[in-house]
């Protein structure tokens, strides 16, 4: 340590709160998520590779047998496409929140918890960083839609991106609240496989809501409205819409409400300390 240089230390400055300090923290926390992501390239390969394989194998496998109810004309590849978009989003978004467990284990989180950062800034920083990461993979995949001869138009594309963004925030929010209370990545994976697959399988990504219990379960799954919203946006300029999706306005309402609820829940959960904070 350069102790001689320390003799030039300036007098203490009064640390005053600054306008927009919360947003500076949001930016910093989000940027950090992004830097960590791009420095671990295998994460990107994993995030894009798995859904791509899902889409290719399933759409080929179901091509001959899939038929929508009531004179459906939509090919499975097209029907399944929005579902895969949401799948990429779901997996990447939720798994970015593993960083909370790592941050806590590595000690990084405790420094944030004792910094003069409001809880909303901590939550938004994490959520926006995770959503940005998740959106990159999803938007790259969205470009593949060109090969499907989808013509959503400008509003359709914009609406799709907004739906994906809001759903990304909600899903990172869901991951946040689950990750906050956990102290092992293994435990998180176990819980996630139980939560994620039903969330996705019952979202209308694979099949339209059937009559009976399964149909009701799909109605109460917020992801149904994300998949439905994206599908309606992508086929905004006409095309077959007999996919059993909820009406567009309801998709907006549920997606916005789910997003808001998750952010509020995350803010509440940051006020609790877990065993991991007190190691």
């Amino acid at each position: 340590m350069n102790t001689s240089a320390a003799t030039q230390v300036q007098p203490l400055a009064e640390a005053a709160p600054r306008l927009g300090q919360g947003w500076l923290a949001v930016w910093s926390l989000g940027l950090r998520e992004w830097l960590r992501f791009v420095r671990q390239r295998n994460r990107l390969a994993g995030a894009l590779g798995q859904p791509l394989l899902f889409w290719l194998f399933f759409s080929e496998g179901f091509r001959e047998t899939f038929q929508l109810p009531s004179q459906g004309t939509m090919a499975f590849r097209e029907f399944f496409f929005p579902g895969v978009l949401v799948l990429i989003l779901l997996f990447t978004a939720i798994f970015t929140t593993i960083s909370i467990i790592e941050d806590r284990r590595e000690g990084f989180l405790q420094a944030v918890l004792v910094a003069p950062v409001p809880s909303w800034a901590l939550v938004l920083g994490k959520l926006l960083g995770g959503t940005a990461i998740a959106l990159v993979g999803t938007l790259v995949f969205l470009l593949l839609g060109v090969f499907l001869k989808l013509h959503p138009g400008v509003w359709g594309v914009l609406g799709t991106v907004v739906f994906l963004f809001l759903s990304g925030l909600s899903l990172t929010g869901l991951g946040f609240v689950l990750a906050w209370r956990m102290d092992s990545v293994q435990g998180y994976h176990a819980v996630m496989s139980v939560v994620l697959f039903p969330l996705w399988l019952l979202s209308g990504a694979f099949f339209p809501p059937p009559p009976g219990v399964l149909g009701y379960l799909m109605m109460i799954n917020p992801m149904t409205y994300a998949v439905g919203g994206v599908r309606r946006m992508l086929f905004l300029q006409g095309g077959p819409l007999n996919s059993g999706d909820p009406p567009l306005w309801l998709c907006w309402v549920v997606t916005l409400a789910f997003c808001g609820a998750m952010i509020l829940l995350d803010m509440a959960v940051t006020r609790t300390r877990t065993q991991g904070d007190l190691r």
Partner: protein
Amino acid sequence: MSETAVQIDQVSFRYGKRLALDGISLSIARGEVFLFLGPNGGGKTTLFRLLCTLIPLQQGSISILGHDVSTQGDWVRRHIGVVFQAPSVDGKLTVWENLRHQGYLYGLAGRELRLRAEEALEHLGLQDRRNDPVETLSGGLRRRVELAKSLLHHPQVLLMDEPSTGLDPAARSDLWNYLNLLRDQQQLTVVMTTHLLEEAEKADRLAILDRGRLVALDSPGSLRSQIGGDIITIECEQPEQVALLLQEKFQLSPTVVDHTVRLEHAQGHQLVAQLVPALGPGVRSITVGKPTLEDVFIQRTGHRFWANQEETTSASHLSRETDLP
């Protein structure tokens, strides 16, 4: 401005049913290097967590620079620097990126942040490592990055939890030189926890915590001088019988600690000359020494410093979580 940097009044804290802190009261003056010494499970880390606002107070009150940690937490956070036992740096980011991130969290940006980060790098000798990912640095260098981070916003009170952990003796000595300099130059108040007895000697004042209670509070020299003269330690096969003999025959007040007989005496050497013939062959060794802080600890607690090694500070007894107010 208040001359008291930290005021702790009747602070108690429980993890579930276990009492981790039991009615602690003390005050720390501005510019003091103050140390909480105690074995693991003594309560010092809990007190550190309360001071740095990581966990909420359950009972009692703490104010830092005249501001209450419970009601003015945000003000307190802006004026304290915190160094955790487990470094809070991000290994995937470079040294510079870690400092920039810390600056953003404390509302520093632009030129001011650059200047302060440069200053911190220079003072801690990290200029040539600024673009290295922190995960590639040694433990000692990481600790320096941690210290640089915690000083970036020019705190007035620096709180450190076991900062010497993982440092070699040279790095430990550097750390102390730097802390003393900061104290002298900027009247920085340094509050740290340690379980290292030799480190405690370097503090201006220290508080000894044992099982959640404050058992001693003074400068290291004063604490030692409160023990009369020399410390005589007798290792023998039957310590209880030897202690009884010393009481009856020599009118002394020995204590048996961890199978050894201990006593304090003004003229230790002279006494030993009388004791050896009287005690007989059961004695394995008799030592005479000047009192150390461990002797202070034994005198105040009745047990050895290292006797209570079970880790009870942390989460094992913690109820699932603690709600902030």
